[in-house]
C-alpha cells in the first residue's frame, strides 16, 4: 500500500499528525483507512486512538511509554511493510430523508438560483453513493464526499443560530447531516429521522470512515413512522456490505 509520500509532524506532545497530499480523493481515503487499520493491529500497545480526516491521520500515543521519535519510526516501518491480508467489511447505509418543503428550508431559493427543478435537486442528491471520509466537528457529524457537481452551492451569508437535529444540508462541494441542534451555515434541503449519535450504545455512531451512505427519499408519512420507531429504539437502519 506504500503509495504516497507522507509527512510526519508533532501535534502537541501527545500525537503524530500524518499528512497525505492536499487533495480530497477516494484513493487517499482508502490508503488512510488501511494504514489506520494496520496501526490498530500492530501498535495497539501504546496507541491510544487514531483520528482520520480527508488527508490526515492523527495518532495519539501514550507519552509515558514511548517518545515521539519512536512512534514515527514505527509508523514509517508499518507503512512500508507489505500488506497483510486485511478484511475490512464496509457498509452502505440507507438514510431516509424527507425533502418536503416543511423541512427543506433552502430548497426553493436554491432551485431558483440554480435554475433547476426541486425534483431534479432531490434526484441528484439522493442518487450517489457518498463516501464517509471521517466524523468530526460535532459528535456524529459525517464528512461525506461525492456531491454532484451540479449541486455545488455556496454556504449561506448568514448562518442560522439553530439548525434542527437531522437536517440534511449542503455547502460548497459538501453535504452532511446535523446530528444535533446547533448553529450552522449550510443550506438545508431536508431532514432525516435517524439518530446519528447515541451516547448509550457502543460504538456511538453506526457509520465509520470508509463506509458509504445513500439517501432514500421518503414522504412525510413514512418519515413520521420511522421517527417513532427510532424514538422507541426499534428502528433498524438498512445496510448492505460492499467491496
Amino acid at each position, binding site marked *: 500500500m506504500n503509495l504516497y509520500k507522507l509527512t510526519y509532524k508533532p501535534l502537541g506532545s501527545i500525537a503524530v499528525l500524518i499528512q497525505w497530499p492536499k487533495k480530497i480523493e477516494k484513493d487517499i481515503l482508502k490508503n488512510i483507512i488501511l494504514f489506520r487499520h494496520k496501526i490498530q493491529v500492530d501498535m495497539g500497545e501504546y496507541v491510544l486512538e487514531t483520528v482520520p480526516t480527508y488527508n490526515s491521520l492523527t495518532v495519539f500515543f501514550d507519552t509515558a511509554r514511548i517518545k515521539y521519535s519512536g512512534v514515527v519510526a514505527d509508523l514509517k516501518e508499518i507503512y512500508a511493510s507489505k500488506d497483510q491480508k486485511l478484511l475490512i467489511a464496509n457498509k452502505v447505509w440507507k438514510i431516509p430523508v424527507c425533502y418536503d418543503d416543511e423541512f427543506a428550508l433552502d430548497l426553493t431559493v436554491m432551485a431558483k438560483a440554480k435554475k433547476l427543478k426541486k425534483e431534479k435537486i432531490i434526484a441528484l442528491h439522493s442518487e450517489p453513493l457518498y463516501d464517509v471520509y471521517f466524523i468530526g466537528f460535532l459528535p456524529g457529524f459525517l464528512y461525506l464526499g461525492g456531491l454532484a457537481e451540479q449541486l455545488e452551492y455556496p454556504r449561506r451569508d448568514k448562518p442560522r443560530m439553530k439548525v434542527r437535529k437531522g437536517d440534511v444540508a449542503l455547502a460548497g462541494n459538501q453535504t452532511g447531516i446535523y446530528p444535533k441542534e446547533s448553529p450552522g451555515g449550510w443550506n438545508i434541503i431536508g431532514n432525516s429521522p435517524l439518530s446519528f449519535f447515541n451516547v448509550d450504545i457502543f460504538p456511538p*455512531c453506526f457509520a465509520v*470512515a470508509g463506509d458509504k451512505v445513500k439517501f432514500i427519499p421518503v414522504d412525510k408519512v413514512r418519515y413520521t413512522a420511522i421517527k417513532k420507531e427510532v424514538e422507541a429504539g426499534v428502528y433498524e437502519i438498512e445496510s448492505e456490505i460492499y467491496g
Partner: protein
Amino acid sequence: MILAEGMHSSVQDLGRKGYRSFGVPISGAMDKYSAILANKLLNNDEKLPVLEMTMIGPKILFEDHSLIVLTGADMSPEINGAPIKMNHVYEVKTSDVLSFGSLVSGVRAYLGVKGGFLTENKLKSYSYYEGITSQERIHKGDRLRIATYDINLEMTSSKIKVKTAHFEARKLEVTKGPEFNRLTKKHRELLFSKRFKIGGMNNRMGYQLKNKFPSIKDTEIITSTTIPGTVQLTPSGTLIILMRDCPTTGGYPRILQLTDIAINQLAQKKENDVFKFDLESSFDFLSRLVSRFKD
C-alpha cells in the same frame, strides 16, 4: 443541593478520551493543574471529578458530611458566612452552606470533595458536555451526588505547595503547529514579540484574541485534526486558541500549539489579560516537561 447557580459551573474530570474519531471532544477541567491539586489535597485519585466554577461561584447546601477543598481562582469562599482559605481541606457537615464573594484572582475555581462527585458517567468520563451528558452546567435545584464519607476514618491534610506563578504567567509556552511554515518571517517576528490581549469571546471551547494579525496566503486548510491548545489563524486575521471543549477537527491553519501547562495557565486568564507566546522548539524538551508535570 445547588441553591444558586453562579455563572457557569460544571462537573469535570481529566477528560473523555478514546472517542475523538466519533467527533466527541475531550472536555475535562480547563485548568487541570488546579483540578488535580484539589484531588491530591484530599488524597483522592487525581482522575476523580471536581466542580469547575467560573468567575461567579454557586451557592451549595451540603446534605451530607464530607471533606472539601477549593483550588484555582480565589472567589472569596465562605462556609456558613465565615471566610475559608484556598487550598485547605475543610470538614463540612449536613446543612452547611458553601458560598462565594468577589473574584480576587484567576477565573476558574475547583471544588473537590472526598471520594469525588458521583454524577452521571458517559463515554467513560464525568465531564459535562452538551449532548453527551444530560446537562452542560449546573442549575439551581440540582442535587449532585457525592461519595459517602466516613468521618471517623480519616482527616487528610496533605501539604502541597501551590505555584503562584501558575496564575501570573505572562508567557505561554508553545510549539510550532502543523501550518507554522505558512507564516512569513514578519509574521513570526510579530507572533513572538507582540503582547496579545484576550478578547470577550472566551469560554470552554476557545479563546479569541483581540489583536488583529496580518492574514496569510493560504488561509484555509482541508479540514484536519485539532486538539486543545491549537492556535488557529482565521482568514480575517483573528487568532483563536482552542480549549478543552473544542471540536475534534477544524479548517483553519494551526500555527501554534500550547503545551498542557500553558492551557492550564490560560484557563485562569480573562478578557483584556495580556501574555506573550514563548516558543520552545525542541520536542524532547517538551516531553520532559510533560513527564515532570505528571509526577
